[in-house]
């Protein structure tokens, strides 16, 4: 990364932090379904994807470590909520299964497109990760799309539940694309084309899939912003306390 100047490093860190924190927090949230999923097969599939997300976050934290941040465990387990860059969508409690599925759908579609855009990034180590995660993420979106279609076209109850969880998650999902401080730096350096472009691509794909499923996108929604700048809902700190309980008792514990 010789071509990186200090500004580029700061911009790359900002991008990596929000991606890694999103993955860590949604991974942790989705893992809360382990053992409680609706049927055995779904329980296993959802838990396995949650593990994928935790694994992906670790790779991203390792890139941050290369750029001079503390190691992955320290970064993941010792920060307070105001040091996290995740969007509000990922930090909300799991709710009922329809809520978790709709969040999984909206988030993973954005994540898939983000990594697709990063495959040609000038930040070669990040581009390599984007290529490495491609298969995992493709399965995650297949799973999400199949479920959303299935339930939106199921019976009256499943359709109503999917619509109401879409209404609830939509403004939160728009918060994924809250712009950072370094949009133009990232774009000019060829690292990442930016949140705006990501949101446009996401809107096109998600709109088509939701229309095919027969669901209505809420109109005039205001994005739930703030997460990228360390402002969070009351749900994040209790999640962090629970996630870091063992680490806080014994930081050298192996498990």
């Amino acid at each position: 990364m010789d071509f990186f100047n200090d500004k580029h490093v700061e911009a790359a860190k900002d991008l990596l932090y929000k991606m890694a924190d999103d993955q860590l927090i949604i991974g942790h949230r989705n893992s809360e379904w382990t053992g409680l999923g609706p049927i055995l097969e779904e329980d296993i599939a959802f838990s396995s994807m949650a593990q994928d997300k935790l694994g992906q976050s670790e790779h991203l934290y390792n890139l941050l470590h290369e750029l001079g941040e503390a190691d992955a465990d320290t970064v993941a387990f010792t920060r307070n909520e105001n040091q996290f860059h995740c969007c509000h969508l990922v930090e909300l409690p799991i709710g009922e299964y329809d809520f978790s599925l709709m969040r999984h759908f909206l988030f993973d579609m954005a994540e898939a497109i983000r990594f697709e855009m990063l495959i040609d990034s000038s930040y070669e180590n990040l581009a390599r990760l984007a290529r490495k995660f491609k298969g995992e993420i493709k399965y995650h979106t297949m799973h999400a799309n199949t479920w959303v279609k299935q339930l939106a076209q199921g019976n009256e109850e499943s359709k109503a539940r999917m619509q109401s969880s879409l209404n609830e998650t939509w403004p939160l999902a728009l918060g994924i694309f809250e712009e950072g401080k370094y949009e133009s730096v990232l774009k000019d350096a060829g690292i990442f084309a930016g949140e705006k472009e990501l949101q446009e691509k996401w809107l096109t794909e998600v709109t088509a899939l939701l229309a095919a499923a027969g669901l209505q996108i809420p109109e005039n929604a205001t994005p739930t912003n703030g997460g990228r700048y360390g402002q969070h809902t009351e749900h994040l700190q209790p999640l962090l306390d629970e996630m870091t309980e063992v680490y806080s008792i014994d930081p050298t514990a192996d498990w």
Partner: protein
Amino acid sequence: MIKSLDPRIDRAQLDHDPIKPLEQLDQFQTFEVFHQTKRGQQHVHVGIVHAPNADMALLYAKEQYARRGETANIWVVDSQHISATEYFDQDIFETTPEKFHRDPASYKVMDRIKAYKERVKG
């Protein structure tokens, strides 16, 4: 409410007696899963998954049977579409031992094969 050391269980606010008889829609139908390790090889039956339709069955088959190790392809088949023999008729597979005429060893060809190999070598 059930009290647990697992905070997720407390949050779920489960009744004291969560084990109730299954209702009709609590269990999906089954699909038979066939797994292929490499392209060109046979698909091998590896087990079943419960799913509401074939698309979902493929999703689950991937997680149940292809999470570890190499996989090229997966088939799922609705279990109801499998035709099977009856165990009652298992005796159709029994063969009488004295059928040397059907045994490859009965064919006296080894002498001729040996002779051919020597001729080719020579």
